[in-house]
């Protein structure tokens, strides 16, 4: 499992064997490929970039080329065991709408995103007075695709507002998983990146 992105590693631990997975914004299919190998999942990706779609096909992965915001409405409800938004939520136009949609078509959703509340971000804004540029937020404000950045607490609040259930949450810092005794407050400071597993309340 060397060279595997930390959030991918966590996701590969969460996902159950032989499940059906949709990876929204699957890029070149790294995560799907990993999940097929490790968990024998039956996976599909949605990707908008032409060259990345071609890479997925070459890897033998199933991929739908298109805009996830438009594609997702075509799937019937509960078509997947997991719908994954890996570093994608902060780039979409309507995150709230998308969250509801993925929990319509998936039994649970796995969402990973960079934490804007990480101490390094806070420090850069506080002391430098500039938008943060970190390992998780590599690009300057004018180059980034991230249009809906949030903190772990922001995301947590949205889940509560939508009356959804958080099954698991993980914080990552420097490729390490921050486990117990981290709570929401400390995760929001020390995790540069978060992975949430969310589902509808029964």
């Amino acid at each position, binding site marked *: 499992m060397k060279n595997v992105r930390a959030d991918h590693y966590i996701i590969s631990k969460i996902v159950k064997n032989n499940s*059906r997975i949709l990876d929204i914004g699957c890029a070149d299919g790294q995560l799907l490929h990993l999940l097929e190998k490790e968990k024998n999942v*039956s996976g*599909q990706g949605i990707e908008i970039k*032409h060259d990345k*779609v*071609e*890479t*997925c*096909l*070459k*890897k*033998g*992965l*199933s*991929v*739908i*080329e*298109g805009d996830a915001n438009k594609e997702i409405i*075509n*799937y*019937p409800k509960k*078509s997947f065991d997991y719908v994954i938004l890996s570093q994608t939520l902060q780039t979409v136009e309507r995150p709230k709408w998308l969250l509801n949609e993925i929990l319509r078509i998936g039994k649970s959703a796995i969402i990973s995103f960079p934490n804007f509340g990480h101490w390094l971000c806070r420090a850069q804004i506080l002391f430098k007075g500039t938008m943060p540029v970190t390992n998780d937020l590599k690009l300057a404000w004018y180059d980034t695709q991230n249009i809906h950045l949030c903190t772990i607490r922001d995301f947590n609040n949205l889940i509560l507002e939508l009356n959804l259930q958080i099954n698991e949450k993980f914080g990552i810092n420097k490729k390490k998983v921050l486990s117990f005794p981290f709570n929401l407050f400390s995760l929001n400071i020390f995790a540069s990146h978060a992975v949430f597993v969310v589902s509808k309340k029964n």
Partner: protein
Amino acid sequence: MVTNKTNSNNIYNFEHTPNLVFDTSLKLENGSVLNKPTIAYQTYGELNHNKSNAILICHALTGDQYAAGTHPITLKLGWWNDMIGKDKVFDTNSYFIICTNVLGGCMGSTGPKSINPDTNNYFGNDFPEIGIQDMVNLQKKLIDHLGIEKLLCVVGGSMGGMQVLEWATKYSERVKLAIPIATSYRHTAQNIAFHEVGRQAIKNDTNWINGDYIKNNTSPEKGLAAARMVAHITYMSEKSLSKKFGRNKKNLNPLSKIFEGSFEVENYLQYQGSSFVSRFDANSYLHLTRSMDRFDLSEKFNGNLEKVFKSNTCKWLIISFNSDWLFPTSESKRLVNALNANACNVSFVEIESDRGHDSFLLQIPRLYNILRGFLIGAKFK
């Protein structure tokens, strides 16, 4: 204008393509029976020891089994010549490529122009109504004959795509990869309407003689040419016609007659029409267009397309072109959605091209890359 009048009578003297005559009969979907059907086909590359490298390529309405190499009648290169061959997308170093002339066609497989073994006369007007299902059933006889348990891939565009859909649903256990390109699971009213214009042109040609023109030693060439002309427009986009011809005029001679065709696009269409009649049979055109119109994959399921793909195990790649208005992307998307509803293994790509429906026949780099990549990817599973 290409003239080869003698073709119309010696079109069946094929020594250059294998003609397999089955001793058995073929039961058609409409209940009638074709005795001792013939299938004409071309192969490229070699079948491997396990018979696991066979790719069936299905041709479109006016195509034929000469997908690659030089066509014996037109002397032009095959319709997918750039796609099939050594080191090409369908690499004959590793794949065994089969392309058959469809049932109802006019390049050697049983069709309206064949001799009916029951009467020893031309079928002509007696040729039974056939469907896409029947074409596939005849192909299946060949695949069985070749001893191929499972086709590695079935691929084709337009009417060829309909055959792919039929293969990969009716005989899904015999197909590993299915690639329907620029096609649909059923014709729209607009598709049928364009075909009907073509059929009317043929039937209104006085030389058609209720389909028995061969016995009368004639041919409804004008009607067939007009049918081809209207169809050809539907294969192109407005943009590609404008780009190619615009309002350019060829003959500015003021003495030329008013309706002699001074726009370049008129001359182009006339050429398309007249060169077509030298290689195609009017009755075949009627029957094949009819079989496309009648094709409806969802018919057996009361129009519920999702049910067609229940427990389907093929690996699908569906391809459309953004400028194709004959089989638009929305039609391919219906297939994708129905496959997704069944948790099937499906990929979808819409390829940008301004060349309309005909794009699948053209050398579009992205189409080639995607097909090549998909075949490579299939090796990992």
